[in-house]
């Protein structure tokens, strides 16, 4: 089959051999698991557990918040000792809500309910995957159930499975393909069935011959085609891999599904298989530990395991001074050694100043255009850099800043050592913040206008009500005046006053003095005196 090419890209040293020498290892249960509730793109899951509650392995502890979200599960059985903020594996070093679990060592599974894909409708299946917490395992952690939607415009014809794994040092997908190709093939067939895809392509970089052989052997007898793609970073980017395998170039503002192509990572295929065929939610993943360690290798790690515990097993060298989550091109440094492994952690790169020396000082841009040649997204990185530097976000967006995949090729080739991706990340987050502010302002404006309108309406309604009541009273009085003319005069007002006075007089007469029996003579005399005085002071009885 003819393969295509994408523009740009770089060929950094792959450094993958060290961590593929040993098979995937399982870690002993850590003493404490810190499971962040927010591990995927979308809404933060709502906690379903209380402090002190016992949970079983695979039990749901966070429910998806809305459809763009994915559930979170307990990675092992134990007790929830706290629900509190903990430092996240995020460059900000900020904290977010985590469930802290003390494992009981039994590792007892909650009851699992595998499903028959054929018996479920598309919607039910997507809900099932959302509640199983299945997200993209390539690092973007986008909820998979949203991508497993054939959509209205007809079905997805081509399913691309991404086993390229182009970033240096990272070998988790490579080892997964070598050791569990059957699971990947089974998961791929399930996804193809849901999407109705006829053509299934697995793209693997040609520097992984063992993985290619294993996948070819496992996919014999299926419509899956395993293709070796040339090793060039970033061949594992979704758009780049789609372009290499199918020749389809996804333009700005479109998605690959608009062209009938959907792309998933091999790890996601494995997770879909586990969730549907065994009913096991996503609670662990393969993590590469590489870099400044004596025995780099891959581990199957439960989510929430502190990174330091994983790295300790791989024997870090003493000059280690930081961990990087992800690879050397796209990864970012971790704020602490104890941050937990999450769904996005494909690699913990153990770094030291010796292995990854600090970047040389930034020099002025000489407009050599090397970055534009290297850009796999066909952007003009130097223009984006100028606009980001000048805080000119509108212009940066006009130059399609959001098509940038932050692969780092431009910074890699820059002769002036400009940290270009840092500028793009800065500009992107500024633009997002402005969008949020604008949405809030629009909402406030609508609410303010509605409130003003409501106040006007209330005022108007009150005035109308008063006017109506006044008219009603007038009409009533007129009716009384015409219906029953009073005996002693024509003025209805006078009659009303007379009636009111009569009522008051009767009321007064009805009031009897109390406790007047058996009073001593002195008090009786006093009362008599007061009564006399009152009689004298009272005006004459009004005329009846």
């Amino acid at each position, binding site marked *: 089959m003819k393969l295509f090419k994408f523009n740009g890209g770089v060929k950094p040293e792959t450094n993958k051999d060290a961590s593929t020498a040993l098979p995937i290892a399982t870690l002993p249960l850590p003493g404490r698991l810190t499971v962040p509730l927010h591990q995927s793109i979308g809404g*933060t899951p709502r906690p379903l557990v209380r402090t002190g509650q016992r949970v079983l392995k695979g039990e749901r502890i966070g429910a998806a918040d809305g459809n763009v979200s994915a559930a979170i599960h307990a990675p092992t059985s134990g007790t929830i000792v706290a629900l509190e903020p903990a430092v996240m594996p*995020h460059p900000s070093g900020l904290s977010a809500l985590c469930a802290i679990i003390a494992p009981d060592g039994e590792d007892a599974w909650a009851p699992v309910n595998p499903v028959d894909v054929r018996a479920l409708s598309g919607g039910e299946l997507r809900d099932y995957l959302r509640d199983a917490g299945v997200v993209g395992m390539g690092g973007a952690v986008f909820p998979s159930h949203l991508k497993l939607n054939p959509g209205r415009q007809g079905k997805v014809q081509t399913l691309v499975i991404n086993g390229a794994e182009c970033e240096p040092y990272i070998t988790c997908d490579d080892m997964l393909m070598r050791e569990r190709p059957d699971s990947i093939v089974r998961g791929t067939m399930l996804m193809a069935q849901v999407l109705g895809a006829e053509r299934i392509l697995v793209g693997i970089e040609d520097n992984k011959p063992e993985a290619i052989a294993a996948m070819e052997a496992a996919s014999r007898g299926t419509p899956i085609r395993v293709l070796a793609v040339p090793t060039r970073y970033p061949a594992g980017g979704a758009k780049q891999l789609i372009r290499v395998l199918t020749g389809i170039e996804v333009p700005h503002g479109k998605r690959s599904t608009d062209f009938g192509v959907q792309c998933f990572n091999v790890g996601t295929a494995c997770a879909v298989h586990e969730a549907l065929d065994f009913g096991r939610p996503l609670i662990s993943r393969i993590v590469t530990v590489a870099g400044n360690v004596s025995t780099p290798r891959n581990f199957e790690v439960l989510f929430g395991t502190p990174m330091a515990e994983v790295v300790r097993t791989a024997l870090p060298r003493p000059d280690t001074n930081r961990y990087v989550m992800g690879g050397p091109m796209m990864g970012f440094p971790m704020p602490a050694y104890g941050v937990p492994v999450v769904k996005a952690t494909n690699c913990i790169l153990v770094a030291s100043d010796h292995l990854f020396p600090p970047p040389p000082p930034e020099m002025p841009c000489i407009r050599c255009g090397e970055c534009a040649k290297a850009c796999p997204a066909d952007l003009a990185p130097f223009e984006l850099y100028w606009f980001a530097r000048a805080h000119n976000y509108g212009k940066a967006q006009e130059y399609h800043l959001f098509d940038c995949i932050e692969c780092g090729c431009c910074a890699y080739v820059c002769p002036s050592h400009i940290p270009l991706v840092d500028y793009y990340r800065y500009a992107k987050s500024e633009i997002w913040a402005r969008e949020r*502010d604008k949405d809030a302002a629009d909402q406030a404006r609508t609410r303010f206008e509605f409130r003003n309108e409501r106040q006007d309406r209330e005022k108007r309604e009150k005035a109308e009500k008063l006017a109506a009541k006044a008219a009603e009273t007038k009409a009533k009085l007129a009716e009384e005046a015409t219906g029953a003319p009073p005996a002693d005069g024509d003025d209805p007002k006078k009659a009303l006053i007379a009636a009111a006075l009569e009522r008051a007089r009767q009321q007064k007469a009805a009031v009897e003095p109390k406790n007047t029996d058996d009073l001593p003579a002195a008090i009786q005399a006093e009362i008599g005196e007061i009564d006399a005085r009152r009689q004298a002071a009272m005006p004459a009885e009004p005329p009846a």
Partner: protein
Amino acid sequence: MLSALIVMAGIALVLGAVLGYASIHFRVEGDPLVEKIDAILPQTQCGQCGYPGCRPYADAISKGDADINQCPPGGEEGIRKLADLLGREVKPLNAENGVEKPRAVAFIDEQTCIGCTLCIQACPVDAIIGAAKQMHTVVSGLCTGCELCIAPCPVDCITMETIPETVETWKWRYPVFAIRQAA
């Protein structure tokens, strides 16, 4: 001579008719400049500019009654945007109108609240819920941080809480380098 006059008059008539038609059928409702200014203003409706809301302030700016530096919640960035839009000089925020503060939301101490509903009436965006003699609370997602509810509260139970930065709202910093390193 006469034909020239007739031709000119004819052209004038036709163009006049076109312009007349256009002025009726392509009429722009409202003042588009006010809309543009209003879109820049932060919509806190706080009245710190001296006008009863963002829209009246936008009106005043477009008429030339108000200056562009009277909006503290909009801050420097807002002034810069207004200056860009109106082709004026950027100037510092007028201190008489207030100072730029970090974004905050109102918080009602529910132990102290007596349920007087005064803050509910003061809130310009209906972000406070409660009823007479019932506890009130602020819907923090809707609160614009205008501080208009603080003054009417008879028991001073409303405080402004700065919105903390979270992982979702965190922003990448502008790349900077230590001077020692660059030297």
